[in-house]
């Protein structure tokens, strides 16, 4: 990849990253951290790429471990964030019963 293009992308992404979270209230710090945590689980596509390019059994094993770990990060991250945020949703009094039922 052309290093200058790469640098451009990185610098712009840094500014976007700073900007999108600059005005978040402390109430949402935990879900935001958890959501950002889920997003870096996208390393999964790197793990898949590596696992798909090797024919060596040992390397494949290590790559598959990486796939399992990355999937746990990605799937678990989004699920737990959603669970936290579900509680912030405006709800009717009846909502309390359904929640207790799922426990």
């Amino acid at each position, binding site marked *: 990849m052309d290093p200058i293009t790469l640098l451009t992308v990185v610098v712009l992404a840094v500014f976007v990253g700073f900007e999108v979270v600059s005005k978040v209230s402390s109430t*949402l710090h935990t879900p935001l951290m958890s959501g950002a945590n889920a997003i870096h689980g996208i390393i999964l596509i*790197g793990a898949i790429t590596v696992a798909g390019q090797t024919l060596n059994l040992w390397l494949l094993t290590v790559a598959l471990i990486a796939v399992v770990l990355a999937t746990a990060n990605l799937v678990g991250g989004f699920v737990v964030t959603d669970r936290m945020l579900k509680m912030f949703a405006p709800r009717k009094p009846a909502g309390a019963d359904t929640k207790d039922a799922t426990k």
Partner: protein
Amino acid sequence: MSLLSPEWTSILYLIAAVCFILALKGLSSPKTARRGNLIGAAGALLAVITVFLSARLDNIPAILIAIAVGSAIAAPISRRVEMTQMPQLVALFNGVGGGAAALVAVLELGNSEGPWVKVAVVFTMLVGAVSFSGSAVTVGKLQGLISSRPLIFPGLAVVMGAIVLAALVAGGFVVATGATGWAIALLLLGLLVGALLVLPVGGADVPIVISLLNAFTGLAVAASGIVLGNLLLVVAGTLVGASGTILTRAMASAMGRGVSGILFGAFKGGSTAGSTAQSDRPVRSSNPEDVAVLLNYAQRVVIVPGYGLAVAQGQHTIAELATTLEARGVEVVFAIHPVAGRMPGHMNVLLAEANVPYESLKEMAEVNPEFKNTDVALVVGANDVVNPAAKTSPGSPIYGMPILDVGEARQVVFLKRSMRPGFAGIENELLFDPKTTLLFGDAKDSLTKMLSAVNAL
């Protein structure tokens, strides 16, 4: 086999990257947060489908099985874990993400060409390993497997410096020779650095470290994107690295700490370990019935919930108590310290789970001037966040942390399990104040008794 042209692949990755930006944006506001998270998940799904369609991959059945295994492990844990244990879970997922990035980098070492790509490989391995072991230590601390007290020993700074230096040397050899042996040495040194970085951090600061390690993993993922020539990984990783850094600083300032002070404070000698001594000074303890009377005839009650409430699963009972008191004309508000619970915003999540209306939750800056006009401050399972030592004793490990001024209320009632000091391990002067009453016992149990006593009045 490859169904997508490189152009289409890039466009789909671009869409996924936009989804991630929208996800972070959405997560910054309560109204759009949940939708934001779903957009992020959709972007991730799109990216994973794209990677299967864009390149000729071997071992597809094995990869699919590995994905199924990862999902089968993570999804049920995420659904079932108690909300009180959520910080550990976030740390755990962060750690395995960092570990995955480090492994990807090791495997790509043989294919990487050019010194800069090799530097990116080294960076990914080192930072990924630091994030993995650092997160493992935070999980241990939060779960109580390791003492939450700062773990320090003489010469720690020297040991740390030597290991970091060794890691840099190993990294240099990896770049120069590309030898697997050096790569493994680098990984092991990275693991050591991560553990030594987090072990000296005191319990109360652990959430900030989780956020910092989250940003680290983001950077490792971005570097792995450079290694693999994948722009989506570069963009997503950089986004998380940047937003994670901002978030870490916001959390630290909510606690009145500097990030470097938290990480390196222990290295500078001056121990942040609190005193463990339990004093035998007399305190005034009471029973649930008396506290119920006190609350019932108050004009204004401020409830300060803390981690003890969450542990006792008393959030539903306290919500009911608040409703009952309000029905009798008592003004009840919840004062939420920014770091109540184990993480910033953690207590809001727990109380929202118990159906406490969003408007009753007051942030610290809003509620602190109102304590003067408060009849009773009811502190349930909180300690460090109301400890006046943060203002009065410069030697205290929590000195400088903003606190809730419950001492200004006319009466203070503490619901506590025992006289044991809080998470930071320091004693609270306020407990011995003449206007303070203590009610010992499990928070939920005490609240239930108080609730029935109020109902009987």
